[in-house]
C-alpha cells in the first residue's frame, strides 16, 4: 500500500518539474522505500501521480537495476557487473559471494539476511570493483574484503566504520586487484549448500 502521505511527497517532487513525468525516477525510489521493493501498487501510484501510463512506468522500472521487483533480504548486496568492474574481476567477486552465501545471484539466503544481485554500472569506475549494500558503496573490493563485509553484517555492524562516506575498507592494499582477479578462476562452482 502506498499511503496518501507518500503520494503527497510524490506530488511535491513532481511539482518541481515543468512536466510531472520528470519525477518518475524519484517517485519510484519513494515507492520502493515505502514498501521495500517496487510493487504493482507502487507502479500504479507513480503512474497516477506522474500522469504516465502504467506500462510506461513498468518499462522504466525494468530499465534501472536499482529498483527491486521482489522483496530483498535484510542486506541487499549489489555487485556492479559493468565493464570497468568486469575488467577488475567482478566475476570472481560475484562467485566468491555465491559460494560464501550459498546462493546464486538474484537469490536471497534462506534466513532472509542477504540478497545477492548483479547490477549495471554504479558510476564508481575509478574504484572498481564496487558494490552497494543497501545503497552504501564499498569500493576496490577484494575477496577478503567480501568475507570481512559479510562478517560485519552478520554481527549487525554498519557496512563500514564511517557510514555514508566512500567506504574504503581497512584491508586495502595495492595487491588487491591481482587478488580479486585470481578469485575468478573458480567458475561455476558456486553451488555450495
Amino acid at each position: 500500500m502506498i499511503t496518501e502521505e507518500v503520494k503527497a511527497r510524490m506530488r511535491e517532487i513532481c511539482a518541481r518539474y515543468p512536466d510531472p513525468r520528470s519525477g518518475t525516477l524519484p517517485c519510484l525510489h519513494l515507492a520502493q522505500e515505502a514498501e521495500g521493493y517496487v510493487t504493482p501498487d507502487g507502479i500504479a501510484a507513480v503512474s497516477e501521480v506522474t500522469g504516465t501510463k502504467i506500462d510506461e512506468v513498468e518499462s522504466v522500472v525494468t530499465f534501472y537495476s536499482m529498483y527491486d521487483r521482489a522483496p530483498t533480504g535484510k542486506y541487499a548486496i549489489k555487485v556492479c557487473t559493468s565493464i570497468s568492474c568486469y575488467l577488475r574481476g567482478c566475476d570472481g567477486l560475484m562467485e566468491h559471494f555465491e559460494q560464501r552465501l550459498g546462493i546464486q545471484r538474484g537469490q536471497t539466503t534462506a534466513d532472509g539476511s542477504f540478497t545477492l544481485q548483479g547490477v549495471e554500472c554504479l558510476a564508481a569506475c575509478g574504484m572498481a570493483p564496487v558494490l552497494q549494500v543497501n545503497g552504501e558503496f564499498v569500493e576496490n573490493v577484494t575477496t577478503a574484503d567480501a568475507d570481512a563485509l559479510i562478517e560485519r553484517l552478520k554481527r549487525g555492524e554498519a557496512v563500514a566504520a564511517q557510514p555514508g562516506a566512500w567506504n574504503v575498507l581497512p584491508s586495502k592494499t595495492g595487491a588487491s586487484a591481482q587478488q580479486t582477479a585470481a578469485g575468478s578462476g573458480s567458475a561455476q562452482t558456486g553451488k555450495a549448500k
Partner: protein
Amino acid sequence: MAEQEELVNLTIDGQPVSVPKGSLIWAAAQKLGIEIPIYCYHPKMDPLGACRMCFVEVEKMPKLATACTTTVAEGMVVSTTSAKVKKGRAGTLEFLLINHPLDCPICDKGGECDLQDFTLRYGPGGSRFDLNKRHFEKPIPVSENILLDRERCIACQRCVRFTQTVAMENGLVMEQRGFRIEVGVDPAAPFDSIFSGNVVEMCPVGALTAKNYRFVTRPWELKKTPSVCGNCSVGCNVRVDVRVDKVLRQYSRTNDAIDDGWLCDRGRWDLDWINDTERLRTPLIRRDGQLQPVSWDEALRFVAERLRAVRDQRGARAIGGIGSTHTTNEEAYLFQKLLRAGLGTNNVDHAHGRFPATEPGALPWAWSDSIAGLEQASHIVLLGADPYHRQPIVDLRIRKAIRAGARVYVVTPEANRLDRLVAGVIRYTAGHTGTLARALLNIITSDGLARGEQGAQRAADRRASVAQETPERAAQVAGVDADALRELAREIAGAKGAVILYDEAATLEPSGATLAADVLDLALITGNFGKPGAGAGPLLADNNSLGARDMGLLPDTLPGYRPVGDAAAHAALGGAWLATLPAEPGLSYTEMLSGGVKALYVMGANPARDATPEQLAALDALDFLVVQDLTLTETAQRATVVLPAVAYTEKDGSFTNTERCVQLVRRAMQPLGGAKADWEILVGVARALGLGWTYLSPAEILSEIGRTVPLYAGVTRRSLGAEGVRWPFAPGERTPEGRATITGSPSITWQMLAEGVARAQKPGGELIAPRGRGE
C-alpha cells in the same frame, strides 16, 4: 501552398537532389530512388537512431552518420555506397545476427523480412559467432491476436513507439536493457487496442506475428491487389493478400489523405465472412416450402417472370427494392435504375440515417471537410460519435490532431476510448444527441456568439426555432451539465477552426430528426466552415453508405440528389436510360417493410435481422421476395429466390467514403464458383426482363455514371486514379494524351454551399450531356 518551401540542394551518390529544409538524408535518398536500409526508422514516426542500419558517409564528417537522424544541409555530399558505408552496414548486421536465429526457412516472416532482405543486400556472408544463441519460451502472446517470438526481436522499438506515440494506447513497452532488452506487456495494462495489428505489419523481422495468419502461407504465394477496405465508412487503402481462394489479410496501402498508412484490426483481419464455407454457390428457388438449387438461367427467368406478373396484376408501385450500403456505386446505380427505368417504381431505399430533405440543387448531407483536415483543426467535437469502434482510423487521426494541440470534446452518452486524452468530456442520457445540438444552437444564437455576416444572418434565421431549447431544458431532459454545454458553445464559437462530427446512428434517435441540419448550422453560425480544419458532418456507418445515397438508393431522389419530380433531371436521365421515369416519390425503407409492397427485391441487405415482429410478418406475407447475398441471411431464409453474390474482394467497382472520396475497388481473387457479382446479377435480371442491358464491366457502368450523374460528372476508372477524388469535382488539366481529368474538393466552401449541386453539374461551364445509348 501560398509560400514557397525553402529547398536545400545536396548530392547523393553523385546525383543532385533538392528537398525541403529540415528533410532527413533518408527522405532525400528516397526521392532519388536510392535505398537506405532502415529498421528503427519509420516514415510516420519520429526518428530514434537506435538500429544503426542506415549509415551513410557524409563528406567532411569524421564518422559515419545515420541517415534517419541527420537533416540535409546545403552542399552536402553523401555516399551510400562507399567502402566505409559497406563495412559499417555489414558490421551492424553481423551484430544484429549474433542474437538472431538463422532459421529463415521456418520463420513466418521469411520472404517479406527486412532483416533477411538487407542481410542479402548489405550483410556479411558469414558469421564469426560460434557460441550458442539465445533461447526463449516461444511464442508468447502479447495480445489476443498477436504473438511474440523474443529471440527474433532486434529491438528497433517501432512497435513500442507506435503504441505509445501514435495509437496512444496501452500496449507494448521495452523492458530491461542492454542485451537483456525485450518487448513486453504489463499485465496491468493489456494490449487490447483496435490498432494493434499495425505493429505486426511494421515489425521488420518475424518477432511479432498475427495469430490468424502465421504459418498459413508463404508471402510469395500471395496475390497482392491494391484496393479499398470494405468494412467501415473510412475507406482505408489496402493491399488485399489472397492465397488461391482465400483472403488471408489486408495490409496498408498508404494514402496520407485517408488512412495515413494505418489500418484497424477489423479491416486487417475480419475477413472470415469472405472465406465462409457457408457461402452460397448456386441460386435457390423456394419449391414445396424448401429453397432448392437451380441454374442461373432458370433463376433469372423466374425472377423476371414473377416481377412482371406482380407489376401486371398490381402495378409497378407494388414492387420495391432495398439496396445496400456495402455494394459498389456501380451496383447501387444499376439497382435503382432497374427499379426506376426497368420496373417503373421509385420504391427504392436502403437502411440509413435520417437526413432532412434539402432544397432541390442544395449540396448533399456529407462531411464538409476531410479526415486529413482534422490535423488542422483547433477544436474537434464528437457528438454522439464513437469513431474508435465505428470508424477507427478517424479516431486515430483525431489522436494525431490531439498531439498537434487540438482541443477535443467528447460528447457521448457512454464512456469513450478518447476520454482520457481530450480537453472535455460531456455525458448525457442516451437518445438525446439532438437535444444537445439544439441546446448548443440556443446558447450560440441567444448569447450572440455568431461570427461573420453570413453567420449572423443564419443565427437570426435559427434563433426562434431553438428559443425553447435552453441548456437548462437539456439538463432536465437529457441529464447533461448545462454549464459544460455553455463552455463548449463558447469554445466552438471562439475556435480558430472547429470540426463537429456526429454519428449517422444519432440521427435515428428520437431527438435526431433535425440533427444533421442543426449541426451544420452550428458550424455555419460560428464561422467554422469552408476551410480545412473546420466543418461539420456525419460519420457514416458502412463502406459505401455515402455512395448508396449518391447513387439514388432513395425513394425521393434520382442519382446525384435530383428530386424525382424535377422535370429537367427526369428528361435528362429518362433520355439517357431510354425510359419514362415515375415522378411520384416512392415508399421508404420502413414503409416497404410495413406491407407497402407485394414484391420486394433485396440486394446485399438483411432487413429481417433488425426487424420488428410486425415487419417480419409483413416480410412473410410478401408475394415475392428475392434476395441477393453471400450467405443464407435471416432475410434470405424467408426469400422466394436467393441469388448468390460475391464480396468486394471478388469484383471491380468503386466506393465513396464518409468524406466524399470516390475510390476504386479492384478484384483481388476469382469470384466464388457459382456466385456472381451484384452488378452481373442485375444485368441478368434486366436482360430477362427484356431490357437489353449490355454492360460488360463495372468500368462501363462507372463511365455512364460519369456522364449521367451531375455530382459524379467526369468520373471514370481512369480519372479516379490510385487514391480517389473527393466530390464536388472540377475539371482538371488534360493529360498529355488528351484525356480529361477531374480534381476534387478537400473542403466544401461557402460558395459551393450556396451554389449547391449546380456547381458540380456544369464543371467549367461545360454541360455534361449523356453520350451514346448508355443503357
